[in-house]
């Protein structure tokens, strides 16, 4: 295992198991910040029956790993990992795990939010929602420029 790790998988994940891997990869960790994304039941007032998640094999893994490396340069991190599910998912299911281990909490929180912004705004994943009214690709809501502004260096 590596201190920085990315997994794209159809299977569900366990936050406890992923956090235990983070701790095995790091010394003197005092803080773990996690984000867990969940498939929402409603989107634009339509009830979601299921969700189909597609990615760009190769580019997705490589680009997320690079963002973990950037985060480690920017903050004092011991370890960081991302698990992102693909394929068919249902409301209430887990989609994505981000875990960041650090000695102190502020670095862990900030790096976790930074990684999530990348996953939401730039990582090559696409969601298709299946609702009672049919299937449609989810529209992107936020622009890259918002994320870039938030994390621009001083």
């Amino acid at each position, binding site marked *: 295992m590596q201190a920085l790790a990315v997994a794209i998988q159809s299977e569900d994940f366990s936050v406890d198991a992923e956090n235990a891997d983070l701790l095995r990869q790091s010394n003197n960790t005092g803080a773990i910040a996690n984000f867990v994304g969940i498939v929402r039941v409603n989107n634009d007032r339509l009830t979601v029956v299921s969700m189909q998640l597609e990615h760009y094999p190769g580019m997705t893994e490589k680009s997320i790993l690079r963002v973990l490396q950037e985060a480690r340069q920017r903050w004092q991190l011991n370890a960081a990992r991302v698990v992102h599910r693909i394929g068919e998912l249902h409301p209430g299911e887990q989609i994505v795990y981000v875990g960041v281990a650090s000695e102190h909490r502020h670095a862990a929180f900030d790096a976790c939010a930074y990684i999530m912004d990348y996953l*939401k705004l730039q990582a090559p*994943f696409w969601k298709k929602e299946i609702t009672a009214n049919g299937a449609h690709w989810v529209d*992107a809501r936020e622009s890259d420029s918002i994320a870039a502004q938030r994390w621009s260096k001083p």
Partner: protein
Amino acid sequence: MLKVLFFARLREELGIGELNCAAEQAATAAQLRESLVAANGEHWRASLFADNIIVAVNQEVVDWSQPLQAGDEIAFFPPVTGG
């Protein structure tokens, strides 16, 4: 040869996820997009020229002016919606 990939809505609209084309057909990503429309019919234009279509060369997002060379992997895709 160039390896060309389409994802998500584009893949569905074009009815194809991957194709190869001769490297001489396109010196840049923009020229490749034009030559794909020329080779496959005008109905490809609506998809490949839709707002905010993104192009990646060798798994890096690039500008449309990006030069191409034989062996490159070029991907076209709509705005991403992960997380």
